[in-house]
């Protein structure tokens, strides 16, 4: 043996020595500025066009009056009651649709028998324009919350069923082999490997669920209901109170954005192992 015992030379540079990119603060600020500018310009154009009567103010409204209408409608008793009625139905549809849809999808994904028998029905059923069924549901349930919830659930169910089904079918085969060799079986395989690896996909589906619950409930309310934001939209539209209609839409967008943010926070917490 001479002086050659040492292991062969390896690259000296380490991965964490990589130069960090320059701060992106300036770029970020510029983007925000441009965004504000674009929205501002649009609103200004709208306002001017409406005041100059280039467009009919009765049909297209006017930003300044939307602003006023927003603070007239949203905090009013009628506005609060409508939002409550709508969001109650959305929450119910969200919970029922998510739970039932996910369970159905899991069963389809886990049982080949169930999938072979019921799987082929998913796509045709999901292609039915559900809103067309709303009058029927209203006939069944009357002008009730149940009617709204039912319509929304028929939309949401299929999204989550398909989602959950593909989530459990696409578990990393390496993990499955490992789990089997380690000795996991049935229930423990499901709880320790299949379900946790489906969680990211399930979450992606859940976020859609909220949007579609809202859509289903509002659509049902617009067709017939005794209360709810959808009813208000129809009411104010037919009364040519376009500014209030815009105000309601803005309210819904705010609700959606807030809930989406909450959702993301929960998701990030639950899926912190992903990054």
């Amino acid at each position, binding site marked *: *043996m001479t002086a*050659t*015992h*040492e*292991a*062969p030379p*390896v690259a000296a540079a380490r*991965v964490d020595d990589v130069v960090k990119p320059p701060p992106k603060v300036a770029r970020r600020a510029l983007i925000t500025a441009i965004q504000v500018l674009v929205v501002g310009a649009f609103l200004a154009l709208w306002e001017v066009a409406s005041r100059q009567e280039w467009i009919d103010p009765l049909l297209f409204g006017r930003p300044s009056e939307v602003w006023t209408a927003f603070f007239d409608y949203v905090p009013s008793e009628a506005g609060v009651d409508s939002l409550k009625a709508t969001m109650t139905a959305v929450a119910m549809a969200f919970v029922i649709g998510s739970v039932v849809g996910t369970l159905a999808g899991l069963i389809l994904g886990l049982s080949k028998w169930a999938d072979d028998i019921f799987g082929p029905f998913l796509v045709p059923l999901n292609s039915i324009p559900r809103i067309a069924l709303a009058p029927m549901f209203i006939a069944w349930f009357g002008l009730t919350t149940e009617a709204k919830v039912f319509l929304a659930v028929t939309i949401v169910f299929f999204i989550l069923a398909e989602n959950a089904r593909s989530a459990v079918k696409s578990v*990393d085969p*390496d*993990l499955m*082999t*490992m789990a*089997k*060799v*380690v*000795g*996991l*079986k049935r229930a*423990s395989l499901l709880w*320790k*490997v299949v379900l*946790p*690896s489906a*969680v990211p996909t399930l979450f992606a589906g859940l976020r859609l669920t909220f949007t579609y619950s809202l859509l289903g409930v509002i659509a049902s309310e617009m067709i017939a209901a005794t209360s709810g934001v959808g009813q208000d939209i129809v009411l104010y539209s037919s009364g040519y109170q376009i500014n209030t209609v815009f105000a309601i839409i803005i309210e819904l967008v705010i609700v959606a954005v807030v809930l989406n943010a909450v959702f993301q926070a929960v998701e990030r917490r639950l*899926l*912190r*192992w*992903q*990054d």
Partner: protein
Amino acid sequence: MSMLVDSGSGARSEVTADERTGGDGGATLAFTGVRQVFAMPKQRGSAGPRSVVALDNIDLEIPDGQFVALVGASGCGKTTLLNMVAGLVKPTSGVVRVKDQAPRVANLDIGYMFARDALLPWRSARRNVELPLEVRNWDRGRRRERAMEMLELVGLREKHTQYRMQLSQGMRQRVALARTLAADPSILLMDEPFAALDARTKLTLQGEFLRIWEAQAAEGQRKTVLFVTHDLQEAVLLADRVIIMLPNPGRVAEDLIVELPRPRAEHLGEVMYTPEFREITQSLFDRLEGAIADGQVAGHGRTSA
């Protein structure tokens, strides 16, 4: 050639396990007349469904406590052999015995380590190592203690809370190694466990694995190892016995005992540069080349059925 001895348990011959490398000489793993045919997807223009003979005529006996390396190009059925021991693949014909029993999935006596780490990404390093212990119904405290011990053994004690994404490739394989060893299985199936690592990390992990194995061997708990690799040097460095396999059809070409002294783990870097090591790898290399040359003449294993 003094350092290489035919193991004698090759094709159709009497088994005489080397005393120093074979423990008590009882066969832990036995393959008799094993043949494996895989159906291939039917291709356009071909007459009927094709099939490929992945393994043909495999007769092997692996005594208790022997460290066996299976070497060969991809497609020669090495992994299929491991999967048969693990009960994941049933041979088309022939018999596989694991401790005189038919192989079965979830055999708690077997630890299986893969080239890819197969860590559960939502579990911390420690909870990954605990997985096989959960199957064995260890209570929480004992699991935790054992997992920490195992992580310590692979030098990752302080990383026990980290998730897979936070660990380097080398660390992931260490965790996988800790998980494989955690429940103290007596048979280890290793499928190119260090193949995806860079040279330096690879040598470190080889050393760590061998140190753990040799330490347990010294305490009289010598685990039987079936180690698949395409790296001849790795095979000679780690194993007691090197089995060289050829593809089309997958078959045993050479079966040799490596007579390098143990323990080797503490000075793997030095072992690699000893004349003995070079002599052995050189001669194995020649045999492998020779076998490949012969194989090209003799074996056109693709069969149509």
